[in-house]
């Protein structure tokens, strides 16, 4: 009877089909097209907790920990869950106001989004921690998160160890694929930076399932996606904590640096730069208070002079100058020069400290008495070597030797931001003096006594001593001898430090002569009054003229003479004679290392030396003006960005010392012969233009 309506069954099917189609279309858009729901679900239900592994420990050569990890607590907040917080109470505990509270919440949102935990107050003091822990139930969304921070039981080696700090946006950009996140800490300077990948270990991530009330229900997928935190590996260094501490102590109240290397391995025993700072001042909550002051300090306590400071080597260069001439066959150990107190072969006479006849009758004597005339002559012979067509040829060869000795190039120490200092290229002289045909050895005469434009870092000087001590080879200076359970990759990182660097073919007998000469320095020469109890040693003093005022005091040495175990370079800025200040420091460092203790007499000497204040008056004035108490305990820092900041601050405050803005461009013209000759005289105005 309803047959005429039969087609309506079909229409109903079409209607049903259409609605189903609409539903499927919406499902496609929800499940296939859009992925935001997946993220929303994960944000809802998966709680990601990062497990920070302990950073590796850095040990000295006797397995004493130069730094350790201690636990500190941060107050962290998940902004989305911070509802119904008793803000008044929280503000009272932290001693902040409501505006600061809101500001920090906003900061946490910007840094770590609304759903992840962000730091609200880092590095709680134990009292704060106790107070907050008690009241935490009143602050939903807030929690206390553990973090391990560095501590330095020996209060030493700040410049070497470097520091860790929270990563910033630039850092994250540079290390994009390495899994750092906002709020992470990473090594920023020193060994902490250089060995970051080794020390940091591997962060672990634990995922938890969380229900609609924010309660953790248990591990997500039974921990299938969790990664385990792997602790950072320990570093074993060649540093001797006692020598390091002594070096820092002796350099107190002075500007300068000391480096000690074990010539047998290239391992750095001590590296101090003064003024420095106590590394414990840059950890945890103290960091915020200290870092600004360190950056603004005019004495640059953060600057690692040992690898960045550029000093004219002065007389400490002389043994090397002699080695070059010997190897080139220009002189024999018996070569003598008749010096009567000055060198006049290049026009204006150059002063020598000694007048007595025969004080430069042979190489050994010349070294012992540090005769300027002798080594100026030797240098000229090397440059004007008849083997090479021109002075330029001779100079190129001379520079080649210098580079081989480790000067004018980065040695490759395992610290960031090493400076290569300067051994001038012929191009520089060509530019200053015009065509290479126009200049000769007289033009850069004082290079022969370690002045002119030659500069070296304390590390390079110490390394040159290791080179002489080893009779012609050295190992690249380094701190880290080995890494805990070293992988192949890490072994590759350390491989350069384990390879003997033998870049010259100077025969051993020449080294023997040089060593004898340097030994004589310590017997009857310029360092005769400095003794290392129980050991014969070799040394060379230096007193380098410089553009910043009084002469720098330099001392390089190695000991014992016949089986060298330590090579040292010490520089005290603007202090005077090398034998007066740098020498005793070097002697005490060797004594400490070789005897593992100081004699009572030496101890007394060390204490007195530590008290001596050789700070330049300009810096003292700055402290007085800026109402700062005395400089912080010795140690150092090195970060290009930081020193830039420092420079800018200095400029802003108008306390910039004479800087080397005009190093080469305004250097003397070809006919200003006099300027060049003057470089030995204490005419500091001229030298400003020459020495960076």
């Amino acid at each position, binding site marked *: 009877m309803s047959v005429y309506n039969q087609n309506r069954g079909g229409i109903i099917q079409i209607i049903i089909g259409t609605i189903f189609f609409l539903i499927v279309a919406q499902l496609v858009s*929800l499940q296939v097209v859009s992925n935001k729901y997946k993220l929303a679900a994960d944000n809802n239900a*998966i709680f990601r907790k990062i497990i920070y592994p302990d950073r590796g420990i850095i040990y000295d050569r006797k397995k004493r920990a130069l730094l350790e990890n201690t636990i500190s607590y941060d107050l962290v907040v998940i902004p989305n869950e911070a509802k119904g917080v008793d803000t008044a109470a929280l503000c009272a505990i932290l001693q902040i106001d409501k505006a600061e509270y809101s500001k920090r919440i906003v900061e946490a949102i910007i840094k770590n989004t609304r759903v992840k935990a962000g730091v609200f107050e880092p590095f709680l003091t134990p009292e704060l921690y106790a107070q907050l822990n008690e009241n935490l139930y009143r602050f939903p969304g807030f929690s206390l998160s553990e973090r391990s921070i560095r501590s330095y039981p020996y209060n030493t080696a700040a410049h070497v160890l470097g520091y860790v700090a929270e990563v910033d946006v630039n850092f994250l950009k540079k290390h994009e694929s390495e899994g750092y996140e906002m709020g992470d800490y990473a090594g920023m300077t020193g060994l902490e930076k250089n060995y970051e990948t080794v020390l940091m270990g591997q962060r672990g991530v634990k995922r938890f399932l969380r229900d609609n009330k924010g309660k953790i229900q248990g591990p997500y997928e039974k921990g299938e996606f969790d990664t385990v935190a792997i602790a950072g590996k320990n570093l074993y260094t060649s540093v001797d904590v006692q020598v390091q501490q002594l070096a820092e102590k002796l350099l107190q109240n002075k500007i300068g640096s000391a480096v000690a290397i074990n010539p047998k391995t290239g391992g750095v025993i001590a590296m101090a730069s003064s003024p420095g700072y106590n590394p414990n001042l840059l950890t945890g909550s103290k960091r915020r208070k200290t870092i600004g002051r360190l950056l603004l300090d005019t004495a640059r306590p953060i600057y690692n002079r040992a690898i960045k400071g550029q000093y004219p080597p002065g007389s400490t260069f002389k043994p090397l100058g002699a080695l070059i001439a010997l190897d080139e066959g220009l002189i024999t150990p018996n070569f003598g020069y008749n010096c009567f107190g000055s060198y006049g072969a290049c026009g204006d006479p150059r002063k020598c400290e000694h007048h007595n006849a025969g004080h430069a009758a042979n190489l050994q004597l010349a070294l012992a008495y540090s005769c300027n005339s002798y080594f100026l002559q030797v240098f000229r012979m090397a440059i004007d070597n008849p083997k090479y067509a021109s002075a330029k040829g001779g100079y190129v060869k001379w520079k080649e030797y210098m580079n081989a000795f480790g000067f004018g190039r980065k040695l490759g120490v395992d610290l960031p931001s090493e400076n290569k200092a300067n051994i001038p290229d012929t191009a520089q002289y060509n530019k200053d003096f015009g065509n290479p045909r126009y200049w000769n050895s007289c033009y850069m005469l004082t290079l022969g006594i370690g002045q002119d434009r030659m500069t070296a870092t304390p590390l390079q000087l110490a390394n040159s001593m290791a080179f002489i001590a080893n009779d012609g080879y050295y190992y690249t200076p380094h701190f880290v001898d080995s890494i805990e359970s070293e992988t192949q990759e890490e072994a590759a990182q350390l491989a350069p430090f384990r390879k003997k660097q033998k870049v010259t073919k100077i025969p051993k007998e020449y080294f023997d002569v040089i060593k004898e000469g340097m030994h004589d320095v310590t017997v009857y020469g310029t360092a005769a009054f400095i003794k290392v109890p129980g050991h014969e040693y070799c040394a060379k003093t230096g007193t380098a003229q410089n553009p910043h005022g009084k002469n720098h005091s330099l001392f390089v040495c190695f000991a014992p003479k016949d089986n060298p175990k330590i090579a040292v370079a010490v520089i005290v800025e603007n202090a005077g004679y090398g034998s007066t200040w740098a020498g005793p420091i070097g002697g005490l460092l060797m004594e400490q290392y070789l005897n593992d203790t100081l004699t009572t007499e030496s101890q007394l000497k060390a204490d007195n030396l530590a008290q001596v204040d050789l700070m330049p008056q300009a810096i003292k004035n700055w402290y007085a003006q800026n109402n700062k108490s005395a400089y912080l305990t010795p140690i150092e820092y090195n970060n290009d960005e930081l020193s830039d900041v420092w420079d800018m601050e200095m400029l802003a405050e108008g306390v910039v010392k004479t800087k080397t803005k005009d190093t080469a461009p305004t250097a003397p013209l070809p006919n200003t012969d006099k300027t060049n000759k003057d470089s030995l005289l204490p005419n500091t105005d001229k030298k400003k233009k020459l020495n960076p």
Partner: protein
Amino acid sequence: MSSNYDNNFSKGTDLAVIILYMLMACIGILAIFMVEYNPNSDWATSFISGKTSYSKQFFFLIFCSFVAVFILLVDSKVFTALANILFAGGLLLMLATFVIGKEINGSKSWIPIAGGFNLQPAELCKIFTALALAKFISRPETDFTKLKSHLIAGAMIALPAILSIGQHELGLALVYSAFIFAMYREGLPPFILIVLLSFAILVIATLLIEPTLLAIILSVIAGLILLYLGKRLKRNKQLIVIIVSIWLICVGTVRFAVPYIFNNVFECYQTTRIYSMVGKEYDCGLNQKAAASFVESGKKSRKPDDYNVKQSKIAIGSGGFWGRGFLKGTQTRGKYVPEQNTDFIFTSIGEAFGFVGTFTFLGLYLFFLFRLIRIAERQRSTFSRVYAYSVVGIFFFHIAVNISMTIGLFPVVGIPLPLISYGGSSLLTFTALVFILLRLDADRQMVLR
């Protein structure tokens, strides 16, 4: 069960529907299991203890199987004979809930029965209404081309629907509109369907477009129609009257009726749900009932949000194409979707099995519905056919509305997903609906009156 022993029982019974029924019911138990699963306790123990929803649902299913067998054993004439009495009894039961009813989840529509179980008469009334409607239309004296018959049929449907609204069961009330399928099949003019559809579009447009702008648009449309008809209007003045009155009704609906219903008839949360479906926020301050309760309680009326739908969409969306895997849905495990056992059970399937799962699942449902339509069309008696289409309509309405609300296509109304959602009443109702149809279908060669 061999046909040799009980020829009557299995002969003519549609096996495909039975298989689909069992399949869907099992999927339902599985889905509830996913919701209730707790990795910290042994599922077998908690299953046997009978304390969890999935074990209860399992026992419901066993009970329903007995009911199904019982229905298949009953003479099909019983249904025609008892249709009107059952309908009257159902209505009485619904009325009785106003007196002896128990309130569950804000609706006083449950009658407590033994063993801690509760019965919802409104659910059962769907079956009785279907039978009664079939009985009415199949009467020889009913001419379903007449308006009078339409009105009587409409009244039969409206009665339980109004009672449901009285019990605050808006969802159940809406289900009764599903009978329009059966009525349409039996001769309801398509004109009515079109009018209803237009009205629905008009209401949705009211939500989407500024009332004033919408009124202007409607006026422009009316003007255009008048222009188009031009000369014919001169010949037939009545047309002008019709068009103008339609225009008046439309504008009246837009400007007065819809806002009045939203603000004065619906509860604040209902209007909010409707608005949130089109992505708008409803200001509960406009709602008279919310304002009244505000005066009463003195508390500020809390703004209800669309948390349910949001979490439901997240759950389904996070399933992706392949799904997160059995028991691996984080939304489900974290209990982020409220009422996930019952009204939002689809989310647990969507999250665990992804688009592949939901598509397959919808395919099963579609196959099931088309199978029922095929059964409906092969009936000789009008009674069976009307009843069959009623079943199709009820199933379809439940499926479409329930799934649409979980994926944000329809406002949230509390109606279960047939055979899947947790709940004894609902499972029993759908079982009865299906097996009565199968019983009738087994006797499809007979003409039932």
